[in-house]
């Protein structure tokens, strides 16, 4: 997991351990480097001092040509176990005395070289001129192993390792304690927030630990919770009253609607008998007694018959409309193209005067709907179109579908008389007519039925029109149907 995605506790832990580790590393490296150079310097200085002492002591031995004494002086070096070997050269550069006796003479440099001490891989050696007054008496060669440095380094390493281990442990323990100071309040806050989002209990309060920024955050958080709680309270109160109101209104409306429906149903039903009687008797009168009527009387009788028939139609339509409210919508997959074509054929059979109208049924998307009801929609819309366009010389009606925002919309379009968009509100109302009965017959219920059916399917109906240019009626059968159908 990348560092920035780690939990805050681990992040703090790692940060503090990393910092202390870095500090320890740098400190120890510095210490080590310092000790490395210092101990080298020390070992070198020690050897130099030793060389000087031996040189000073061996002046007489060299001056009086006494190698025995010189060897004796050199043998004092055995007190210094790190000295591997040493030898003296006289002023002619000839090996004069050496230490220890066991070392073969060939292992010494054959001639004294330049003054000074130098480190090599595993030893330190160098030449020290032996001078008395201003006279060069000879040269001392001395060679020390570096086990002194290595021993010291081993010790330093152990100490450093110990220091690092202890410091790291201390740093770990301290950061465990100190990070709690930061992480605990944050974690507690997170827990609280989680609990709130899971249980939606806004009465919980986060506990404040310190007065730092996290403390401020917790204060702000708690304040926010108070606000949320208050708002929730008002909201739920408001909701309850609103629900109550909606319930009352709905039930009131339902009652009113039912009353209205049963009223209109009974009225229509009750009106049917007298209208049938009027119609029946008027027909008998026309059939059996028309010869007793003059021309005017015949005309009146004809009008009575026509109007009584119209009345009967009205009542039938009204009853159909009222029944629509009770009928259940039974949805099946319907091939809308076929349905529209069948409807058109039926309508043309019934009314042959529309044969001149050019009717174009396009291929449409199928729909999940009640076929009987939607057939009614097509009947109403197409017959409307035929009715309002058959006066035109090049009348045409087009039926099709299109897709608008994931919803399939069907339309019926004509180039008939159209309508004035100012009266659009009246278009789908019961008994609302935009044209006179004399101009175009009809009960004024057709579009109301269309509206009711479409609405009961969960769809929408709308219309566009212009006077003398035609009208388009759009309807959809559900607010959403799958696009890829």
């Amino acid at each position, binding site marked *: 997991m990348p560092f920035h995605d780690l939990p805050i506790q681990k992040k703090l832990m790692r940060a503090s351990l990393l910092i202390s580790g870095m500090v320890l590393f740098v400190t120890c490296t510095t210490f080590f480097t310092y000790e490395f150079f210092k101990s080298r310097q020390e070992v070198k200085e020690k050897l130099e001092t030793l060389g000087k002492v031996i040189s000073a*002591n061996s*002046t*007489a*031995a060299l*001056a*009086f*040509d*006494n190698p025995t*004494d010189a060897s004796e002086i050199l043998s004092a070096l055995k007190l210094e176990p790190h000295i591997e070997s040493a030898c003296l050269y006289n002023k002619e550069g000839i090996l004069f005395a050496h230490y220890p006796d066991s070392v073969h003479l060939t292992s010494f440099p054959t001639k004294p070289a330049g003054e000074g001490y130098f480190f090599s891989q595993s030893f330190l050696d160098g030449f020290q001129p032996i001078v*008395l*007054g201003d*006279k060069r008496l000879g040269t001392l060669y001395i060679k020390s192993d570096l086990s002194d440095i290595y021993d010291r380094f081993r010790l330093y390493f152990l100490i450093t390792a110990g220091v690092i281990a202890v410091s790291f442990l201390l740093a770990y323990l301290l950061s465990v304690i100190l990070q709690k100071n930061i992480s605990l309040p944050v974690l507690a806050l997170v827990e609280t927030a989680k609990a709130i989002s899971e249980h939606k209990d806004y009465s919980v309060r986060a506990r404040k630990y310190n007065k730092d920024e996290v403390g401020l955050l917790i204060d702000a958080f708690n304040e926010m919770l108070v606000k949320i709680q208050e708002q929730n309270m008002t909201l739920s109160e408001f909701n309850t009253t609103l629900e109550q109101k909606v319930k009352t209104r709905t039930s009131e409306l339902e009652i009113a609607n039912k009353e209205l429906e049963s009223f209109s149903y009974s009225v229509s039903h009750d009106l049917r008998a007298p209208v049938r009687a009027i119609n029946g008797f008027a027909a008998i009168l026309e059939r059996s007694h028309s010869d007793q009527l003059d021309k005017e009387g015949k005309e009146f009788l004809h009008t009575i018959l026509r109007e009584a028939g119209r009345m009967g139609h009205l009542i039938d339509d009204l009853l159909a409309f009222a029944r629509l409210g009770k009928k259940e919508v039974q949805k099946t997959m319907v091939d809308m193209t076929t349905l529209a074509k069948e409807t058109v054929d039926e309508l043309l059979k019934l009314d042959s005067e529309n044969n001149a109208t050019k009717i174009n049924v396009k291929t449409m998307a199928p729909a999940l709907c009640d076929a009987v009801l939607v057939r009614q929609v097509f009947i109403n819309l197409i017959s409307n179109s035929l009715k309002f366009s058959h006066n035109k010389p090049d009348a045409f009606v087009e039926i099709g579908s299109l897709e608008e925002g994931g919803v399939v919309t069907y339309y019926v379009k004509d180039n008939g008389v159209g309508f004035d968009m100012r009266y659009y509100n009246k278009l789908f109302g019961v008994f609302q007519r935009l044209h006179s009965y004399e101009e175009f017959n009809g009960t004024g219920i057709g579009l109301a039925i269309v509206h009711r059916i479409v609405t009961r399917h969960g769809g929408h109906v709308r219309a566009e029109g212009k006077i003398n240019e035609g009208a388009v009626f759009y309807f959809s059968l559900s607010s959403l149907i799958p696009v890829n159908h």
Partner: protein
Amino acid sequence: MPILRRMIRLGLIFVLLTGRTLLCAQTAPVAVEYQLKAVFLFNFTKFVEWPADAFNSDQEPFVIGVLGGNPFGSYLEDVGAGEKVNGHPLVIKYFKTLDEVKSCHILFVNKAGITNLSDLLSAIKGRSILTVSDASDFLRSGGMVRFYINSNNKVQLQMNQDAAKTARLQISSKLLRLTDKYEPK
């Protein structure tokens, strides 16, 4: 005849300049033993401290005297040429008799040229002169340092510390390490 005169003069200078070398070349070469002893005599100046009153002034030379014949040839001069001892210029003097020994700091007594050592040494007793010789009875007679050849055929030193002490000479411990102690019986 100025040219002839000049030639004679040049010849004289040549003889004077080269004469000594010629003379040395003529004498027998100095034995290695004496070459070493000459160096030792000079080295004594570094390991022995003379009292301040051994010199009358800072400029007074430091004298290494040789009594009773010179066994070193020119070697002593070669070793000590231009040297200084604690600021005193080093001078080598050859004495024939004891009477000639006046200002002197190291006196080498050639055993070949001296018959009566005791008299000689008692004559200079009390003076701060480091007496050195290769005579076998030198220390018994009151001398301070004796050269001798040991079994390895090396020149060794033997010292009569009491005599040096009497002469108020301080011998460096480094030198003492190298010397055999003389124990009077």
